Each structure stands twice: as structure tokens, then as C-alpha cells.
């Protein structure tokens, strides 16, 4: 019976319960609160920067050693490699039903949606668990021991900065929601394809680590390190030189976008979430129009749909970038403004809370539902073939009643409003640091205020029933 499922397509199988759209009245309230909060922020503005200095304090030596020492690193790295192995194995050998296969929920929900949240709260926790970093360091250590010298890496071209990560992020989401097409419908990636992609990505990442060095690549090109690391900048925990550190909340974000391409990473994050939120609403008509045009033009249906969705992701990226560029351009017209090339990356970090709010609002319910599967039946029966029951939970299900629609709506609106406020705080703070006169600083922020209001209201719109 279960064998039968393996070759069959599944439309949206992972999302068994979709969120109801936010009702119009709550959408209106949410947007109004955003505007009121924004004007309040303008009047209550401070004159000296408060978040430029991280005010780091080192935490206890014992704690640092326990959490960052070599034994912990080996254990965490081992866990990371093991779990990646389980996901790839399940993807290759397990069922093609995405909701029954460990690979899909683990890679696209537990890791992809979980780590941004863990990172904000706990710091850059992906770093020790990063399987490629662990392998890279083990291999590097082995080489050093055998050859008696360090491997000579090539110099990373500085101009590339984090562009490889930005492109990788777009590619990841493309794989997740565009690649999997069945009968002219986007159905999400299948486990086998996901496993193959994971292997291809592993080979690519390890190669880049050999060429440029493990830490160098993690800081710039490795998609997951860069992406999760970005969110960890919002939180209060960091580490340097083997010591755990406590820092002022949000303060580390301002020193994140120092490499070229960082702005593209955060824009890619907002753009991909926007695309996912709008593909069956705001962009649906446009997508169908382009798709039909391509099909009429004689293209294959699968290819047409992939091309169309690719185009719309690109348009989302361009649209988000445009709004940000308008804001920066506007700021540059205010008296005493730094040059544009400094301003452009200088306010990129103010988009990180917006990106996080988008993620949280869009995927919070999916995460709550899907983690029940992750720690229930997927843990006991990772292949989804009903051949194992490792922890006795193989027949467990998902309780979709744990969240009411009202709870989901308030979390969504709350996340976007809070993200908006934090973005305003960061932008205002940077302006006070970069403009000599606080009045000019405030004036420059009318522009960023407009940008933030646009993003937040668009985010609300995507979740509301206006996005039909």
C-alpha cells in the first residue's frame, strides 16, 4: 500500500493546513499601528547613537570552554554531519511523499526556518553544527598533521564578497518552490531531488573550502553560514577568540554588512519570502499570464512554469532592491550625507529585522505544525516507508488544533510590527552616527521611514485577504 505512493506527485503535500488570510479589519489595524508607531518614533528620536557600540562582556571561562572547546566542536560537528547524512539517505532511499520523508521537513523547515530563530535567540549556533565546516576543518587538520604545513589557499577575490551567498540563497529557494513541477503545477521539491541537490551543494562547498579556506568561505560564500549568521547579529550572544560574549541587543547588526554583496543577501531574503507569499495571491494573475504566454509560444509546460516563477523571483528581488535604493538615494540628498557608496551598504542591516519578521510571519504556523512531524513520525520512520519505528512514534500525527487562526493572525501582525520598530530603531541610530547634525539625521530618516512602512505594509498585505 505504502509502496504505491512512491512514484506519485503530491501537490503542496507539506502544507496540510494553510493559514487563513488576515481579515480586512485586522489588516487595517495592523497598518494603522505601523503608521502611528512610525510617527511616534520620529518625535521620540534620540540624538546620540546607542547601538553602534556593542559593549561586549566576556562570559565565564568555564562556560566558554565547555561550549566552544574542542570536544564540543567535535560533538556538534559530528551531529551536523550525521544529520546531513540521514537527510541525504532518507531523500535517496525513502518515499517520494514529501510529508513522510525526513529529508524535506528537516532541510526546509527544521534547519531553514529553525536556525534563523535559534540564531536570534542563542547566537550563531549554526557555526558549530555546520557539517561542511566540520568536514573541512577535519580534513584541513589531517592535511596539516600529515604534510607538516598549512594548505596554501588561494586569495578570495574581495570584490565578490557575499555575492556567492546571495546567489546561493536565491538558488536554494528556487529549488524549494520553483523546481518541483508536476502537470503544470508547482508542487515543491521531491525528496530525491533535494538529496541530490544536497550532495551537489556539498561537493561545491567542500571544493570552495579547499580553494579559499574553510572560515573564509563560511564568512562569504557558504549560503547557510552567511544567512543564519546574519540573523544571529540581532541577538545578544556572540563569540570571539574562544570566549563567549554578551553584547547589547541589535548592536552587532550594524557591523554585519561590511562585505560587498551583504545588501543583496538581505534583499534576497525579503524578496524570496515575498514571492512565496504572493505567488498564489498578488502575483498569481501575472504568473498565469506569463505562463500562458510561454505555453502558447510553444514551450513545454514544466519549463514555462519554471521560467515564469524564476522571472517573478527576479522581479521580487528587483522590486525590493528598488524600494531600498530609493530610500538610500533619498537620504543622500539630505545635507551632510555620506557618499552613496557608503550609504548603500550602511543601512542594509536595518533590513535584517524586516527579513526576520517576514520569515516569522509567513512560516511560524508551518514550523509549529511540521516540527510535530519532525519529532514524531519522521524521527521514528525517517524513510517514510513504514519499515522502522525507532522511537515508537511512527504512527503519531500532527495536531493542527494547537494554533487557532486568531493566534496565528496576532503573531503575524505582531511580528511585522515589532520587526518594523526594530528596523526604524537601527536606521535612526545609524543616521545619528553618520550625520553630524541630529536634525539632518532625523530629516534623512523620513526616507527610511517610507521604505520601512512600504515593506511592513506590503508584508501585511501579503498575509491579508486583500492578497486574493
Amino acid at each position, binding site marked *: 500500500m505504502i509502496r504505491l505512493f512512491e512514484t*506519485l506527485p503530491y501537490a503542496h503535500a507539506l502544507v496540510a493546513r494553510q493559514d487563513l488570510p488576515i481579515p480586512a479589519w485586522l489588516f487595517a489595524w495592523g497598518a494603522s499601528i505601523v503608521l502611528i508607531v512610525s510617527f511616534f518614533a520620529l518625535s521620540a528620536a534620540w540624538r546620540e547613537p546607542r547601538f553602534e557600540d556593542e559593549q561586549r562582556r566576556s562570559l565565564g571561562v568555564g562556560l566558554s570552554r565547555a561550549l566552544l572547546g574542542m570536544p564540543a566542536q567535535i560533538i556538534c560537528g559530528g551531529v551536523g554531519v550525521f544529520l546531513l547524512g540521514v537527510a541525504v539517505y532518507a531523500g535517496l532511499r525513502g518515499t517520494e511523499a514529501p510529508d513522510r520523508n525526513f529529508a524535506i521537513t528537516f532541510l526546509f523547515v527544521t534547519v531553514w526556518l529553525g536556525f534563523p530563530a535559534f540564531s536570534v535567540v542563542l547566537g550563531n549556533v549554526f557555526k558549530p553544527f555546520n557539517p561542511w565546516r566540520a568536514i573541512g576543518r577535519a580534513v584541513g587538520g589531517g592535511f596539516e598533521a600529515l604534510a607538516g604545513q598549512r594548505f596554501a589557499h588561494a586569495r578570495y577575490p574581495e570584490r565578490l564578497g557575499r555575492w556567492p551567498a546571495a546567489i546561493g540563497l536565491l538558488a536554494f529557494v528556487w529549488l524549494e518552490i520553483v523546481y518541483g513541477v508536476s502537470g503544470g503545477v508547482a508542487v515543491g521539491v521531491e525528496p530525491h531531488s533535494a538529496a541530490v541537490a544536497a550532495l551537489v551543494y556539498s561537493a561545491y562547498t567542500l571544493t570552495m573550502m579547499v580553494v579559499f579556506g574553510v572560515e573564509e568561505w563560511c564568512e562569504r560564500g557558504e549560503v547557510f553560514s552567511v544567512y543564519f549568521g546574519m540573523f544571529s547579529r540581532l541577538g545578544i550572544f556572540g563569540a570571539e577568540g574562544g570566549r563567549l560574549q554578551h553584547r547589547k541587543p541589535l548592536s552587532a547588526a550594524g557591523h554585519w554588512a561590511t562585505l560587498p554583496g551583504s545588501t543583496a543577501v538581505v534583499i534576497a531574503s525579503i524578496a524570496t519570502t515575498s514571492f512565496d507569499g504572493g505567488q498564489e495571491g498578488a502575483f498569481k494573475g*501575472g504568473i498565469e499570464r506569463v505562463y500562458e504566454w510561454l505555453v502558447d509560444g510553444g514551450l513545454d509546460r514544466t519549463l514555462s512554469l519554471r521560467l515564469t516563477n524564476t522571472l517573478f523571483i527576479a522581479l521580487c528581488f528587483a522590486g525590493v532592491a528598488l524600494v531600498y535604493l530609493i530610500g538610500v538615494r533619498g537620504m543622500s540628498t539630505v545635507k551632510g550625507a555620506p557618499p552613496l557608496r557608503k550609504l548603500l551598504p550602511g543601512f542594509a542591516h536595518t533590513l535584517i529585522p524586516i527579513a526576520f519578521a517576514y520569515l516569522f510571519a509567513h512560516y511560524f504556523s508551518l514550523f509549529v505544525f511540521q516540527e510535530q512531524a519532525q519529532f514524531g513520525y519522521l524521527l521514528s520512520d525517517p524513510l517514510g516507508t513504514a519499515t522502522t519505528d525507532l522511537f515508537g512514534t511512527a504512527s503519531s500525527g500532527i495536531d493542527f488544533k494547537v494554533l487557532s487562526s486568531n493566534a496565528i493572525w496576532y503573531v503575524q501582525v505582531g511580528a511585522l510590527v515589532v520587526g518594523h520598530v526594530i528596523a526604524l530603531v537601527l536606521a535612526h541610530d545609524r543616521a545619528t552616527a553618520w550625520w553630524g547634525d541630529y536634525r539632518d539625521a532625523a530629516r534623512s530618516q523620513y526616507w527610511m521611514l517610507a521604505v520601512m512602512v512600504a515593506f511592513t505594509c506590503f508584508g501585511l498585505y501579503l498575509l491579508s485577504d486583500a492578497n486574493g
Partner: protein
Amino acid sequence: MQSNTARVLVGIGAVAAAVILLLVLKDDGGDDSTGDATTAAKAKPTGAGKGDAGQQKPAKPAVPTIVIRGGKPVGGIAEISVDEGERVRFKVRSDVAEEIHVHGYDIAKEVSAGGTVGFDFPATIEGIFEAELEHLGEQILELTVNP
């Protein structure tokens, strides 16, 4: 030079935004092209099967029937919207033997080729759910349960 780059980027962005606007707005004009899924289920009062008419109590609304022809729902994906606590009732008449699976509620029923199967369950979970022909992976119903 940097300023020129930015200007070029703004230009590209403006074109992109114009394209998006054009597509979105154009669609608003001709909404019928999106293939709105008007179905037997939407037309609740008239959509009932003849056989039921005699047994129905007058107050009870007719049960919509989703007709499957050639492995696809006739008239597109059906839509049913109820409030939490009400009952979800619909029938499926299919020309192919299939398993009909209501996701989220996780209710599955077999239907034989040419047969009809009825669903009647309480709407206890809020949200939007799909019902599929499980083996073909074809969605036949979008069930909305409002709070």
C-alpha cells in the same frame, strides 16, 4: 562612478517595478482570465444530486457533489467554506477508482469507478485545506474553515 552605478540600478529597478505593476493591474482589468474556480460546490442550492431531493429535510442545505471526469474535477477545484463547529458535507462522484484524501483532517475514503462517496464531518480545525485524488495527486476541493 558609484553614483552612476546606483543610477543604473535605480533605472533597472524602475523598469522592473513598471513591469510588475503592468502585470498586476492588467490582470485586475480582466479578472475572468485567471480561471476562477466556480464550481458545483459553490452553486450550493442547485448543485445537489437528484437522488437526495426526496430525503432532504426542507431546512437542510443541499449537499454539493464534486464530479470527477477523466481524473479531474469538472468545473475546476471546488470551494467549500464553513465556520468552525459546523459540519462539512460533500459528495464525490468519480469515473475513476481513487482514494479521496482531505488533508489536515486526514480523512481518506475510497471511491470505485463510477461510484459516489459522501463526506460528513465536523469542522474542528480552522484553516484552508485541500482534498485530493491521492493517487493522481489532483486537487479537487479547497475547504476553508473560518473561526
